[in-house]
């Protein structure tokens, strides 16, 4: 482990990504707009990416880079599908308030 390669202590990176991750979590729970929810999810994933890159740097292992690359790819695909679903939901209801999308329950 080469923590010295980092500009600041490792703890700071971990804490930073955790905070961003938590903000993303809060966004998912608090917002009713599915688009913002998707964005919050992007925040969470990016927090993870940051962590990957940090550790890749620390361990001098570019597997973290590859992983982050894959995550970005998947995130793109996921965002595309998510937006498509939002669109079809919107088509059916003319709104996308997630609190209103609650036919299924029990």
């Amino acid at each position, binding site marked *: 482990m080469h923590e010295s390669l980092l500009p600041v202590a490792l703890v700071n990176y971990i804490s930073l990504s955790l905070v961003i991750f938590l903000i993303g979590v809060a966004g998912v729970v*608090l917002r009713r707009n599915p688009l913002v929810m998707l964005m919050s999810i992007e925040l969470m994933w990016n927090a993870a990416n940051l962590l990957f890159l940090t550790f890749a740097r620390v361990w001098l292992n570019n597997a973290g880079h590859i992983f982050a690359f894959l995550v970005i790819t998947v995130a793109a695909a996921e965002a595309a599908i998510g937006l498509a679903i939002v669109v079809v939901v919107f088509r059916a209801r003319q709104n996308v308030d*997630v*609190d209103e999308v609650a036919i299924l329950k*029990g």
Partner: protein
Amino acid sequence: MSNHIMGVPGSYPILFVIWLVPLLGAVLCWAFGPQLKRFAGVLGSAAIGISFIAALVAWGIATQTSGAQTGAQQPLFTWLQGFDFGLLLDPLSLIWVFIITGVGFLIHLYSVGYMWNDNAVARFFAYLNFFVFAMLTLVLSDNFVGLLVGWGLVGLASYFLIGFWFFKPSAVAAARKAFVINVVGDVGIMFAIFIIVTKAGSIRFADVFANPHALDPWLFWTCVFLFIGAAAKSAQLPLHTWLPDAMEGPTPVSALIHAATMVTAGVYLVARCAPLWSASQDAQTLVGTVGALTALAGALLGLAQWDIKRILAYSTMSQIGYMIMGVGVGAFSAGVAHFFTHAFFKACLFLGSGIIIHELADEQDIRLMGGMRKRTPVAFWAMGAAVLAIIGFPGFAGYFSKDQVIFGALEHGYVWMWAVGLLTAGITAYYMLRLFFVTFLGSYRGEMNPADVGIQTQVAASAATIAHETHEPHAEDHAHAPAWIMAVPVAILGFFSFAAGYIMIGPGSPWAQFFDRSFPHETLPPATISEGVTTGLAVLMLVIGGAIAYQRYATRQALADAPARLKRESETLPAILVRLYYWDDLIELLVVRPSQRLGEFFGRWFDPHFVDGVVREVVLTNRFLGTLVRSFQTGLLRAYALIIVFGAACFAVYYALEGALR
């Protein structure tokens, strides 16, 4: 000494004849009832007759001796491992066999006439034969379990016959009562058997009696539990209440089962287990006490009855009390002797009363009788002899046997029992003579208004009406049976009521010799009061009782205003006697009602609402928990997200702690 009584093993085909021919008769009557019709009676009587003859033939083997053994023992089969069945005919069982088949035969014969007009005559004889078979099983068994089997089967036969007119609710109720109380006795014997099996390791009389003290420390309790059986069967206190009710059955049934044979099974049991009783002083005291009290109590109740059969029933109870007292205190021979004579005179009394009842179209209340001497002379003379016998009139059968019993109590050191016996003798004289006088003397009161003789209308009338309805005459003829069919047996029994006692006079009598080897011999200290004095006192009591009865019911004056007197007496009888010491009410209150309440409580409330309720609670809890689980399923996306995040947070806390503490 005590192992003398067990028979000589061997093969005795005659025993099977005695034992199984009645069963065959029962099966035939049952199977071919519709075809046989009245011939069922002939068939049934014939079966018992054959059995009786066989018993006579078997006299020799029953009294044979071989070394220490007396009688005949026929092994049958292994019922269960360790439970070997066999038949035993020794003097004691022979006496019972004689009474069962002999008196039984007469009663069968009588029944042919008595049941002439009844539709179900074949069924009747089937039951009757079955009863004889069961009773023979009881007395011929050489072990306790076989005895118990017979014990139960006679109870069943009694149940069938009491409830013979099963469309009559009172008969049905009486039958059930008799059966249930008898089952109490059965379980008593059962428990005794547990002790015997456990302690003695065998159920055969021979093995158990060989060493009664093997049962220690349970010997006394064995006797107690055996006696519970005896008490139930023989209508001893406190299990006596079924006997009067059992008079709901046809009169021949009362004569055979509830007077002559079955109810004396208790006497047989105690006599059979004489070695046990001899070995346990406490048991003697207990059984003697119960017997004496029953004798007195039964006699007192006899004072307050007006139904002819019920009076006889209470007298039966009282007389069996004597017998039990006799065998209980150790005077086995005396007790058995009283059984022997009692069988004749009591059967005679019942059959005689049956003739009267038949004559009066099922009227049983003696207040509505009177003057029957002319209408039923056979009954008058036969019953006369029998009444004299039962009250112990010198020279009649009962005189000899009862005397032995009363003196036996004294001889064995129970002075108070002796006194009670004497007192009871007086009371007996009174109420039996009252019965006789009121029934046979004076003028016929049957046409009078029942209320005029003190009968509470609704009770008497309903009983009579139902009795009327029960006889369902044959469609083809309403004719009565030939009179001799009923008269002859009564006459024969009347004769024996007089004559049966003469074989038992004195210490060297044939009777005493016959039982010489059957019962344990004891050397007793000489009694303080001699036998002669006892006899004298007994006769004195008899005279006093008889005199009062005569004065009240038989003088010309008394006969003239009989209705008014009867009415007055009916109204002034002590309530405690009319209500039978409140004993039925007490049982109702303490046993029956609580059981029913408990049953209702359990069945209506506890089971469905508590035991099942707990289960239902579990189910409801499940439903509730199911609702709880589903209540998280609000359909709200954000709520779901929150739940997931919450779960993740819980995980995170756990892992943070685990990771940190490691």
